[in-house]
Structure formats: structure tokens, C-alpha cells
């Protein structure tokens, strides 16, 4: 029984060390939300390029210049931006929950925020301390 106890302890230690270093993102929930965002991106891309939509500092996107969008497309774009922000929140919470730390959601959002901006294409608009700037 005693050697088994040690084995159990060693396994626990390995599991705890491993979980401390890496975050789990490969779950059905995360895959489903990223697949939806990937599809939506094709529709959002022209508006990132035109500057109608910009990246916020908090890991969300903003409809920053609705005047530049044809009247007929405005409502659809508003819905796209809302849906994208809901999905981004879902992504952050899915990752937090997948790691059994729902309270990490805001830290995950904060970690994602600069990565969105860093991965953005040149010409896209982003919020900064001095207001909207173009990458």
C-alpha cells in the first residue's frame, strides 16, 4: 500500500506541475466558437480595412465609423459587431472554464487584447491612449 501511496503522490505532483505551466484551449467549446469567428471574419474584414470597425484595448471590437458604411449595410454590420463581441466573451469564458478557473476570464481577456492588436493587419484601426490610430 505504501509504495502505491508514493506513486499516487508522484502522479499528483506531475499533474499539478503540468497544469501550472500550460493552459488548455483544445476543447469542443473553444473549437466551436473559434470556427464561428473564423466564418464571421470574412464578413468583417472589409470593415476592418475601411476603418468602419476598429480594435478596442479591451479585447473587443468597436463600430467606430458607421457613417462610412452604406445605409443598407449598417444594421447588418451592427449585428456582426455585436455577435463578434459576444463570441469573444464566450471564447474567454470557454478557456477559463476549460481550465476549471472561471475567475480567469478577465485575465484571459486582458492577455488576448494586445495579441489581437499585434496580429492585426497594417491599415486596421485600433484604440490607443491617444484615441484611434491606424496600424
Amino acid at each position, binding site marked *: 500500500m*505504501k509504495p502505491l*501511496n*508514493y506513486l499516487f*503522490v508522484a502522479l*499528483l*505532483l506531475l*499533474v*499539478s*506541475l503540468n*497544469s*501550472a*505551466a*500550460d*493552459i488548455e*484551449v483544445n476543447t469542443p467549446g*473553444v473549437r466551436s466558437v*473559434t470556427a464561428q*469567428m*473564423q466564418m464571421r*471574419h*470574412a464578413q468583417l*474584414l472589409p470593415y476592418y480595412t475601411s476603418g468602419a470597425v476598429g480594435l478596442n484595448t479591451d479585447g473587443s471590437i468597436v463600430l467606430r465609423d458607421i457613417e462610412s458604411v452604406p445605409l443598407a449595410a449598417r444594421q447588418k454590420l451592427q449585428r456582426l459587431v455585436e455577435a463578434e463581441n459576444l463570441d469573444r466573451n464566450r*471564447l474567454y469564458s470557454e*478557456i477559463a472554464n476549460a481550465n*476549471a*478557473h472561471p475567475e*480567469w476570464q478577465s*485575465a*484571459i481577456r486582458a*492577455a*488576448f487584447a494586445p*495579441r*489581437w492588436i*499585434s*496580429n492585426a*493587419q*497594417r*491599415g486596421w484601426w485600433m484604440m490607443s491612449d491617444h484615441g484611434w490610430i491606424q496600424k
Partner: protein
Amino acid sequence: MKKTGIVLLLTLAGCASANVYFPASSVQKEADKIIQQIWQPQHTEVKGVK
């Protein structure tokens, strides 16, 4: 048995403290992968722009 108990206690304490830490660098790396996956198909259409 007493020794095992102590080791187990220390390990559990280790688990608790290890999981409290937010794995910031791992999250950053995974964030890059996820974002590039979401934005990827369109990136290939715009040559040389990143």
C-alpha cells in the same frame, strides 16, 4: 504512514498554490495561435501585409 501523510499534504498544498498562478505566457502563446487561426484565410489574400 506519517511520512506519506506529510508528503501528501505538501503535494496538495503544492497543487493548490500551483493552480492559483495564471499561466500568462502560455495564454499569450495560445492567444496568438487562436487569433491567427481565426484571421488566417484572409491573411493569405493580402500579400505581404501583416
